[in-house]
Structures are given as C-alpha cells and as structure tokens.
C-alpha cells in the first residue's frame, strides 16, 4: 500500500483527494496523510520517516514554501528516499527549474488533473 503525504495550505484539498481517490482508499491501495504547512510535513516525516513513500507538495504556501520543504527533505536523507512531486499553480519555467535542481521527481500544475496524477502514481508504485 502506498502511503502518500499531501502538503497544501488549502484545507479543502483533503476533502478533494479523499473523494477523488475514494475507490483507491477503500481498496486500501493508497493511504493519505495531510499536512497544511511545510513545518507540519517535516514534523510528520520525522515521526513516520520511512512510511511515506510519496510526497505531493504545493509550492506556494505561507511560511516554508514547497521548494524549501523539498530542499530540506532531500537534505535529511530519509531512508528510503521518498518520491517528491510538486503540485502548484505557478507552472513557470523558473519554478520548474528550481524544483528539478532541488531534486523533485515530478512537477505538476494546478488544477490537478487527477487522471494524470493517478497514472503517475501507478507508474511510481
């Protein structure tokens, strides 16, 4: 079962994901955790490090940005190293470049195309 940590400051993201993946959740294919800030995400990772295999993070968040979170995750060298995908409304080249440089595995733009996301997750699982 894939454990996914979703990091986004919008709380309704949780409801959205839980509904979009309701079948997968019901079938125990995937389990979601939600963090509403970079700090929360790191706290979760510190507690459950190796469990979360995949992290989906928004870039544009108050406080610690998604890119900063990405950098810190990569620096901490969790074992096994989690796959980090950035989801964001700012789909521009600069963000893309920075994300790639920092080691992001994927870069998705909002609005999230859940079909595409599901494909990518299947590829990664």
């Amino acid at each position, binding site marked *: 079962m894939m454990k996914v940590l979703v990091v986004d400051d919008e709380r*309704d993201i949780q*409801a959205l994901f839980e509904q979009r993946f309701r079948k997968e959740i019901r079938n125990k294919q995937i389990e979601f955790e939600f963090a509403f800030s970079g700090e929360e995400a790191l706290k979760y990772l510190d507690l459950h490090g190796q469990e979360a295999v995949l992290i989906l993070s928004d870039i544009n968040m*108050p*406080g610690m940005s998604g890119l900063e979170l990405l950098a810190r995750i990569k620096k901490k060298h969790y074992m096994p190293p989690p796959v980090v995908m950035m989801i964001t409304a700012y789909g521009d080249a600069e*963000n893309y470049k920075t994300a790639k440089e920092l080691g992001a595995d994927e870069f998705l733009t909002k*609005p999230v195309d859940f079909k595409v996301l599901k494909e990518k997750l299947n590829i990664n699982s």
Partner: protein
Amino acid sequence: MPQWNNKLRWFVYAGIALLVLHFAYRGSDVVTQWLALLLLSGLMYILYDNEVFKQARFLLTAVVPYLVVTAIIYLLTAIDPKLYNLWKPWFEAANSFAVIWGFGTWFITRRQRKELAKARERAIEEEENNKVITAMKAQLEVQVAERTQELTQQKEELELALKELKATQSQLIQSEKMASLGELTAGIAHEIQNPLNFVNNFSEVSNELIDEMKEELATGNQQEALEIADDIKQNLEKINHHGKRADAIVKGMLQHSRTSSGQKEPTDINALADEYLRLAYHGLRAKDKSFNAEMKTDFDENIGKINIVAQDVGRVILNLLTNAFYAVTEKKKQSADGFQPIVSVITKKSHDHVSITVSDNGNGIPAAVQEKIFQPFFTTKPTGEGTGLGLSISYEIIKTNGGEIYMQSKEGEGTEFTIQLPA
C-alpha cells in the same frame, strides 16, 4: 583766403620795414609815424571793405578811435603845435583812452566770441546728445517690445508646462494606483484560481459520485448511497463557499481600481487588513517566485466596525505591507541563510481609537532618511521600481479619514508603521 595771405604778408613786410626805418633813422620820426598810421588805416580799410574779413571787423571798432585820435594828434602837431601843447594832457588822455578802448574792445570781443563759440559748441553738443538720446530711446522701445513679446511667450509656455505638469501629476497618481492594482492583479489571479479549482474539481467529483450513488441504489445499498449523498452535499457547500470567495475577490479588485467614492462606511478593519495582507503576499509572490515571508497576525476581536473609506484605508494597508515585504526581501538577499523574514499585522482597540500596526524585521530606515519618507516622489528604490508616492498618498488618505500615521524604525533591525483611526 590764400590770395589774401600774400597781400597781408606785404603789410607785415611794410610794417617791419617801417620799424627798421624808425630805429635806423632817428630823424624820420614824423614820416614813420605817418606811414605807420597810413599802413594801419590801409589795413583797417581792407578789413572794412571785404566780406571775407567780416569776422575781424570788430578790430575796426577797436582800432579806429586810436587811429582818429592819433591822426588828430599828428595833424595838430604838424599844423599847430602850440594848440596841441595847450590841450596836450587832453590829447594824451584821449590817446590813452583810445588805446585802452582798443584793447578793451579787443578783449571783450574776444571773450564774447569765445563765449559764443562755447555756447554754440554746447548747443551742438546738446543737439548731438538729443539725437543720440532719441536714437537710444527708439532702440530701447524696440528692445522693450521684443522683451515684452519674449516674456509673453515665456508666460504662455510656462502656463502650458504647468498644465502639463498637473496632468502628469494626476497621471502619476493614477498609475501609482494602477501599479498597486497591478501588484494585486497577479495575486488576485492566483487567489481566484484556487477557489475556481475547487469549484471545478468538486463539481467533477460530485458528478462521479452521483453515478456511484446510482450504482449503489441499483444494487440496493441504500446506506452507502446515503453516505455518498452526504458527501455530495458537502461538496456542493464547498463549491458555494469557494464560488463566493472568488466573487468577493473580484469585487474587492474592482473596488480598488475604481476611483474612491470617498464615502465613509462602517468597516471591519480586521477583515480588511487580512484581505489586503493575503492579496499583498500573493501579489509579491507572483512577481518574485523566490519571495517568501512569514506572516503573523494579531487581530483584536473587540474592534467591531469603524467608519472609514474602506477602499482607501485598504490601499494604505496594502502600501505598508508592500513596503514591509520589500524591506524583508531586500534584507534576505543580503543576509546569510538563517534569516527568517517576518511581517506582522496587529490591530488593537484603545478607548477612542483603533490602531493597525504593520511591522517587519527588514533593514530599517536610516535616521537621515526617516523624515523624508512621507514626502511625495521620495523613494529609496532604484529608478523605475517605485514612484515614491505610496507613503505620501497613504499619509493623505489617513489624514482625510481623521487619523494619524506614525513610523518607528531602527536601522538594521526593522520598521514599524502604525495607523491610528478614530473609533
């Protein structure tokens, strides 16, 4: 005159000859005397007779009495010496008188002539001066006319320039408004995108859920179907919520671009500060992707509503926030990694006023600059990055709303702006 020069020269020779004669031959006194007299008379006659010598005629008046007296004396001494001796004193007196008369006349005439000449000279000079003066006057009048025309032209040009400046000034103020609106636009676009995403996503999901619900109903799973129905209901509520959110953002943006109606209305200052805080943040993020700052808020719950022109005060808050964000971003660029930019907004109610404080931990404002920051067109930003109007407009707005705006800053540590408004 030249022809006379020669003739007169003969007289001179003759005179000299007579003198020589007189001194050489003592005995010929009488002869020389008579010859001298004749010579002089001859000279006088020439003077009298010729137009050429008109000017020297006074000499006649001077000399003739002497000639006459001398002639009489010579005649008398020749004809009747006894009679002459009888009246000698008288004759000598007359002679002396005639000589004196001669010299006197000569002197007086000379002086008269000199004075006349002087007067004439003066008159000529005056006329010359007058001519010059008249010429100068004419020239001056031409110059004055030219200058007047120049000045009138300059005045017109200046009036035109002043009109243009005023127009430019209002343009600048408007563009400052537009610039702050522009800053908002990107943030607003982002702000709207989020709720719109939810509206789209939740409607899609709800659509799918309805299909699922139909399936469950078909297979008789009423419990499951009811649960799905609850989810759908929640989704619709969320759709409504996010739709309203987008609507409010658009309304806010329109209000900001519209020229303020200037109407004071009861306004929730906490909501206003919060809205503009988020808008400012997103706006700056849109401009500078690497921008990030921690935002702290501390809103006093007891404020309620105060009477202000919401749109204008909101613009002020936006301006202060933009400045604060700029300051911390600048500091971050110059600082080591550990620096955490913080911008905070605090609202507080005192007994007769409400204060809104925007503070940042940026570079602060140097003491030398502090008293200038509210001046129009004063900015420390590089050319093209700021109009320098933000704070001066903010100052005006707060004043118009009956409030005060203060600044406290320490160089290297941070800055704090406080708006006080009557409650």
